[in-house]
């Protein structure tokens, strides 16, 4: 039916869009969202490859990856909250105490 490379291309696109979001935006919340985008892209790749090899192991990987991504989102938001509490902003350009 639909060739696997189509799905993989979508996955690559989402990954790159997410990466650009992490690198380019300076609002910490958007950076976190872009990170989730990247992880979603990878999950899509896994499912596509699982279909290709007809192997359920790929689905298990996605299952575990979703778990880890949710945990990371929680930790990231907790860290973001500690910064917000002190500085009343989530703009990462204000994080400059550690410049070289």
């Amino acid at each position, binding site marked *: 039916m639909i060739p696997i490379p189509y799905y*993989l291309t979508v996955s690559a696109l989402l*990954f790159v869009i*997410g*990466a650009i979001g*992490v690198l380019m935006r300076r609002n*910490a919340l958007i*950076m976190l969202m872009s*990170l989730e985008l*990247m*992880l979603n*892209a*990878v999950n899509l*790749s*896994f499912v*596509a*490859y699982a279909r*290709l*090899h007809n*192997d359920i*192991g*790929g689905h*298990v*990987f996605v299952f*575990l*990856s979703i778990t*880890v991504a949710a*945990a*990371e989102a929680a*930790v*990231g938001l*907790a*860290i*973001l909250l*500690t*910064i917000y509490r*002190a*500085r009343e902003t989530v703009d*990462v350009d204000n*994080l400059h*105490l*550690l*410049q*070289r």
Partner: protein
Amino acid sequence: MDATALLESTGALLPHLMVLLTGLVILTMDLFLTPRNRYLNELVGLAGLLLALILTLSSLGTPRQVFMGMAVSDHLSAFFNVTFLLIAALTILLSASYVRRENVSAGEYYTLILFATTGFMFVAAAADLVMVFLAIETLSIATYILAGLLRDEPRSQEAAFKYFMLGALSSAFFLYGIATVYGVLGNTSLGHLAQALGQGGMSPLLLMGMALLIVGLGFKVAVVPFHMWAPDVYDGAPTAVTAFMTAGPKAAAFAAFLRVFFQGFATPDLVQQWTPVFAILAALTMILGNFVALAQQSLKRMLAYSSIAHAGYAFVALVAHNSLGASSLLYYMVAYTLMSLGAFTMLMVVARREEQPYAFDDYAGLGTTHPLLAALMALFMFALAGFPPTAGFAGKFYVFSAAVQAGHYGLAVIGVLTSVLSVVYYARVIMIMYMREPERHQPALQLAPTTMAVLGITALGILYMGIFPGGVMQLAEQSVALLFQTKM
């Protein structure tokens, strides 16, 4: 999996379970502890680690795969386990006074340290890419939190955020690499990777997957050009946590490199692909790490860049794809652990309070005010620079010999030259300690017994490994033998 297999598998992973259990016990105990009994945290922690050590040594046997091929229990995992247990024990000891001084919530702190250690141990025991990923995530998440331990200290908050963002980014790259490898080979088991490759799996996509894996793991080890986070994070994190971070996650990431690239991508034509990449990374790291360290004004940042440089030296051992290379890597991990933990403990001691800027001037005249401490610091500096008869010299000697043996003369030359360069900034500390007058009258430093224990253990370990390197090297060689047995 039937009951006997399950029991056997669990038995093989008992050390890991022991460490995890200790963490859980400390977390629960924290509910009931009063400020008087806080020493129980460290006591339980060390007791648990000791039990885990006994379990590791007693379960040494024939290498076997457990849990349906997800994990292994072999000499390599045992060697790394002992190293990680040592790191955890030393960290607990040096944190004892730190935690009281900075008024940190000790229960969660030790729990996270032990969870991270469990993660380290699972990395070393991984036999499948999914296990490598999950173990790395465990230790990463625990370490992100630890970097932000001092919740009200702005530098710590920043360190946690930067570490998290770049760490999570690298995890995404690593996961994409795993997905790609899975896509090409249909399997993520490290043992089967090598077999599946024999059936013509080489393709641009596989190389892409390998590249992504290198990027992901490279971040964790902080090799150039993936090192950008390390100076800021090591500088901003609480010093006890920095000590832990320079030793533990680095050693775990190197264990991951060994498992993935020496057991997984081990066919000769693949090795030909990634060895040059590793060589370039090693060279860049050694050069940049040492040069930038020269310019630092803060001792903590200088040690951060020196940590990057040492990761570069260890990387040379990976490039030399031979038995001496792999065993020298193991030796270097132990040596570097001792040196780094010792040096950062000294930092913690002399700084007295966390908000000090770790300027070099703190050390002025330490030779006259605290001669023993100054001597220890000098030992650590000599060891990091690579002077005999310290473990630092032996480690570098073995690593560069392995490189020469494999024909990478250029790398060995770069390594030696940059080591010579590093003497400049390490010697600077020693000179300040012995050749300058003490700044102003400061009350004498009184060391807690636990801190003295850490300094004693690391100093003795460095000297022992430097004078009698054979013992550890033999163990290391035994551990890596299995990596080179079944080469295709």
